Every structure is written in structure tokens, then in C-alpha cells.
């Protein structure tokens, strides 16, 4: 029967041993695994179909904020083919509020022949004009890579506003 003290020594010894074994002193053994580096923004994609979000709301923030947030359902794209990791930027321009919001998504080869959901995440936005219950917005999807960019599709929607 080993004592508690001996057990502590065993634990410390095991940890030290494993640490050293995983290191450069013992070639060929490593417990660490590097994550695959994604080549950000380098690659191409074919996108055949875009199903834009049809509605969106601008509503007051919770917890006493005098600011507003933009909340909208996802936009979907049908991706035919992807090589590398090109980016899709999702731009929302609201000219009556003099506001543009942009979010970026990364595509990967696994997205080939998938419908990819682009969720424009809730974002803080300036106050909508008090006299308007709706504001017009232009949504633009752009495919970008290191060498250039190309507009995929664009549409206009009406965003309903809730005032405080």
C-alpha cells in the first residue's frame, strides 16, 4: 500500500515525465496537435442562389441603454463549389440613418453543395429617425479573396423600427 506522500510523488513524476516525453528531447512523440491553419481570404467559390432575409427590426437595447440594435433573420446562399477559404462580406446600408454595417463570413471546401446560413449578428446601431416606422436598407453580399472582390447579389428591404 503506498502512502499519500508517495502518491503525490508518483503524480508529480508522471506529469514531469509526460511533459519531457512530449518535448523535443524525445523525437517523434508529441501530445500537442496544431490546428490547421486556414488560409484566410484566399480561394474561390461559386454561389448559385441567394435567399436574402426579408425582414429586420431595429429595437431599443435592454438594461437602460439609450442605443438600439439591429436584429434580423439569416440570409441563405447556395454554394456550388469552394476551394480555399474565400470570404463573404454582408453589408447593410441604411441611407436614411447614414449607417453602414458589415459582417464577414469565411467559406471552406466543406461548404461545397451546401446551403450556407449567413446570420447577421445583432449589432448596436444609432437611433432611427423618430418619425419613421420603417427605414429602407440595401443588403449586399460580396465574395472577396486576396486578389479581388465580386458582388454576389444585392436587394432592398424595409426594416421596421420600434421606438422607445
Amino acid at each position: 500500500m503506498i502512502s499519500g506522500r508517495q502518491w503525490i510523488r508518483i503524480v508529480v513524476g508522471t506529469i514531469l515525465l509526460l511533459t519531457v516525453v512530449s518535448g523535443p528531447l524525445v523525437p517523434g512523440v508529441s501530445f500537442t496537435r496544431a490546428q490547421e491553419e486556414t488560409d484566410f481570404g484566399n480561394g474561390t467559390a461559386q454561389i448559385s442562389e441567394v435567399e436574402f432575409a426579408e425582414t429586420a427590426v431595429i429595437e431599443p437595447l435592454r438594461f437602460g441603454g439609450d442605443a438600439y440594435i439591429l436584429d434580423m433573420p439569416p440570409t441563405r446562399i447556395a454554394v456550388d463549389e469552394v476551394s480555399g477559404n474565400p470570404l463573404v462580406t454582408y453589408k447593410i446600408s441604411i441611407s436614411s440613418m447614414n449607417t453602414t454595417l458589415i459582417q464577414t463570413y469565411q467559406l471552406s471546401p466543406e461548404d461545397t453543395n451546401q446551403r450556407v446560413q449567413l446570420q447577421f449578428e445583432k449589432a448596436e446601431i444609432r437611433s432611427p429617425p423618430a418619425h419613421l416606422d420603417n427605414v429602407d436598407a440595401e443588403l449586399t453580399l460580396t465574395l472577396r479573396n486576396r486578389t479581388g472582390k465580386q458582388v454576389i447579389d444585392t436587394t432592398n428591404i424595409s426594416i421596421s423600427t420600434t421606438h422607445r
Partner: protein
Amino acid sequence: MNLRASNNSDGVVRSLSTRIVHAVFADRLGVTIFVASILFFMLYWRIGFFINDNWTIANTLANVAQGQLHISDVVYGTDSGNHPGMHIVDGKLYGRNYGIAFLALPILWILDGLSVVVPISITISALWSFGILWIGVEIGRRWVSAEIARWSSGFVALGLFLLNVLFAQPIDPRWHPIMALQILTMVSAGLLAVFLYRILARIHDRRTGLVMALVLVFGTSVGFWASIPKRHVIIAALAMLSFYGFIRSRQSDEPLHLGFRALSYAAVGISAWVFPAEAIVLFVVLAPLDIATAPSNTSRELVVVGGIFAISLLPAFLTNYLVVGNPLEPPKMWPDFHGQVDVFGSSEQPANAGNPEPSSNPKPSPEPAGNLEPPKETDHQRSLLTAIIASISAFVSKGFAAASYGVSRLAQYMEIGLDVSANEPGKLYRVFIRSGWLNLSGERGINLSILETAPVLGALFALPIAAFTRARHRARTVFDHLRPSDVFAISYSVILALLYLHRLPLYATITIRYLLPVIPFAVYGVGRVSMIRSVLRENIVPGLWTYAGIVMIGTQLWVLWLILANPIQSEAMQLHAILGFAAGGSLAVWTGLQRGMSRQLTLGLGSILVGIAAGVTTVFVLQTGLVYAHYGEFALGFVNAIVDRLAELVVSVVTKSM
């Protein structure tokens, strides 16, 4: 013979290490506080850059490690080196906070050295598990038995180690400089807690010291900044060290009182190497109070103390001299670099411009900056001796102008601070009590007040009440109870606050970080409240259960709320703010309500309220550190694995970097 000799040297080593442990941590409890703090900080340690001026200090260290003060190799950030806090002197780039860079240098060497033998990521997991082992045995042997404690902590430590190894990723050596800085700030924060423990244990008792040190780590904003490579935690630790030296040297029966007196000044000197303006604040508080309250002021003592102080200032002066030729012209006064000239002779845009990467997660570029010319040998690289001699003469000639400029700037800022306090009480309210939605650039709800991020400070409300009640009865007793150390803590806090009030509230300070060095002094103040000490002495258990309940259940409920309510970051931060404000406010009300209740009830309620105040802050620090902040990879593999899954569920709160 041989055996005896080796035994002897073993004994010498052991007694030396015992001495060092005793000198730094005082006792086992001090070590336990330190280990517990580091374990906590490491739990949410992300290896990466929190804000872009972290680049500046990391580049400073990376270049200091290459043996030069100027920055010719922009390892992190944009290639142009155009980052906040960069300076340009004679066409060369210089960083800031050189004291931090030099203090982190030995850590960088250790990391570089270790990485030749062992993988750093696994070593971090190993050290974390050793910490778990220590804490498990220390706590377990008090609660159950030493034998059970050893067996169970052994299993837990080994299990966590294996779990970490399962998810461990290799760490590229290019991250070593930033890691060295983060380790330095974490160690500083841990030592800060140890210093507070030693101070309160000396003035009152070990229990007060222990609990307040833990409150500082787990229940204030210190935890938030612990692994972020900025100056605040380091300045706080140096100020606390100076405070500790001051307290120890007040006792004439203290055999080392002269040494401790010198220590209190040496900490000021090192602060000057880190951030001179804050060192001046410490000095103007320390010097008059020290002379006035020292057991004796013989000329021998003053020479010793002055000599040590002068030596401690040398690194700062030498750095300034080597860069601008004037020892008293600190980095803050060097010309700012805004990319006005192309230092590296390339006409390229910053590397990130035109890069579609949403740059919340800056990655260091593995290649050195483009078109780099080899650094030229210049007259800046002089021999040390010439530099010292020249620096003394320069000290006399140019020094006084710069010194008087510095002091007059401080006085000017304090005047503005007083002006703000008198005429804009709303601003004081925003900084100290309730932040609300400040109209600052960026996200408005994420910058919280002092009370919201350290609600336990609500207990400080007892001090003016006590002073007022005593003053009504007999004016003298107020001052009878005031120790020199209290005057130190109050003056330091007030002067530092006045120095920064003209700039506050400010964006990207999250917890009013400029005033972070005030927090440990304020927690010292909480430890000085007699009712709080009564709570700790007589009825600590309800508080501990409340704290444990809030952290264990509250953290999970919070995550559930994040998933269900899908708040954006500002909303989540404001809910933290409201809870912190409520907890701090309740504690403040409690300090005023004690009269009407039975002592038992008062102490029980106080215990629970302190537990709540510390608990909501631990939840805040864990949520911000683990979930909202979004940069780099966690140092511990299993944290990475858990948070990655979690982040998929609570997307909106993490989409933007803080």
C-alpha cells in the same frame, strides 16, 4: 563523506529556498494565496493581444531581447509600427514602459530556454496541475485529513493534466514575448494579493489578511487585468510593495526597519521605469509621510534611504538618457509616432489595410518588417561608464527643467481634477458609482464604474459614517484611530484619482483601469472597517456559502441567459454593471443600517452581502475573460475546448472584440 557533503549542500539549498519563500510570502498561507491567484488567472489566460497598444509593449520587449532599446523589428501588429504609444526619436522608433520590458526579460529567457527541452503548452498545463495539487493538499488537510487531501488532489491534478494534454496545441515561439509579459502581470497580481495579506495580517490578523487578499483577486477588477499586458497591475503591485515597506518601517522594534524603509523608496524608483507619472504620485505621498512618521530620521538613515532610492531610479534615468540624452525626460514626453514618416523606408500600407480579415484577432506576422535595414551603430550605444558619468552631468544641467515640468504637469492635472470634482459631480458618479451608457466612441455600455466592478468597496461607506459619528462625540478620537498607513492609502488613492479625473470616463477602460492601483488600497480600507472584521471573525460561513453558490450556480445560469436571451456585449456588460451596483449599494446601505439590528443579524447579513459582492465580480471576471473577450488561444487546452463549443452557442456576445 560524500553523502554528508551532499546532505549539507541540500540543507543549504533548502534553507535558502525557505528563506526566499519566507521573505516573499511570509508563510504557507501567503504561498497559498499566490498559487490560488495564479491558478485563477491562468484559467482565462488568452495568449494574444487585448488592445492594440499591447503591440507596442510586446514589440518593445521583443527588441529589448535583441539587445536594443529602439524598435527595428516590428514583430507584432502592422509593419509600419504605427501603434498607440510608439515614439520616434532621431528617426528611430521607441516603445514605452521599458521597466515592464526589462522585468519580463528574464521570463522570456526562461520561456525560450524551456522550449528547447519541453513543449511550452504542456509545461503550462503541468504547472497548473502542480498548483491544483498544492491548493488541494493545503485546503484538504485543514478540512478533512492530510491523507485524503493528498490522494484526492493527486487524482484531480493528474486528471486535469491529462485533459489539458488531450487538447494541447503547440505554441509558436513568436508568442513568447507576449507570454512573458502576461506571466509578469499575472505574477505581479498574485504578489499584489500577497502584499495585501501581509499588510492586513500585520495590522490586524491573518484571517483579515487572507480574506481581503482573496477578495482582491476574486472580487475586484484586478482579476480582469491580471493577464493583460498593461502597466496597471504592475504599478499596483509596486505601490503595494512600497506601502508594505512603509508600514514595516514604522516599527522601531523591527530589526530591518531601515531596509524596509529603503524598500518603500526602491519600489518608487522601479515604478518610474514603468510609468513615471504614477511613480511621482507614489513619491509625493510616501516622502512627506515617511519623514513625518519615521521612528527616527538620523542623517545616516536618510543617506542610506536616499542612496537606495537613487540607485533604484538609475534604470529609468539610464533608459531615458540613452534614448533622448536627458535622464529626466520619460517616454511619455518623447515625440509620438503616428506613422508621420516611413521609418523602414517602405512605401507599403500597414499590413492589415486592404486585408479583408476582420481584425479582431491580430496575429503577429512571422516575417520581420519589410525592407529592413540593419540597425546602424550610433552614438546611442555608448559604454555604460561614460553613460553614467554623462548622465550625472546631464542630470544637473537639463534635469531640473524636466523635473519642474513634470511636477507642474502633475499639479496642473490635479487642479483640473479638483475642478472636475467640484463642478461636475455627475462625472464622479459615472466613474465611481454607476456607469450607465456613456457617450463614448465604440460600444457604449462596456465601460463600467469602480463600484460596479468591485462592489465589495461599498463597505467603505462605513468609514465616513464612523468618522462622522465619532466627530459628533469627540473630535479627537477620529484621529486616534487613523494610522499613518491609513493616511498613506487615502492620499495615494485621492491623488491618483485626481491625476486621471480630467480624462475619465474613457473608452476601452472597461473597469476604469487607470484607477486600478487604487483598488488594493481600497480593499485595504475595507479590511480596516471594524464591522467587516467582526463579520470575518465571528460569522464568515454564510458569506462563503453565498460566494460558492453564486459562482457555481450563477456562472451557469449566466451562460444559460446568454444562450437564451442572446444579448449583445453592451447589454451583457450592463447587466453585470447593474448587479455589481446593486451588490455594492446593498453593502453600503448595510454599513449604515447596523444600528437598528441585533448583532447576530447584522453580522450574518454582512457576511452574505460580502459573499454576494465578491461572487458577482467573480462571475463578471470569468464571463469577460472566458466568453466575451475574443482574442488569441487559451493557454490551457481544456478551457479552449470548452469555450470553443460555448462560443458557437452565444455568438452575438462574442462577435466583436472588446
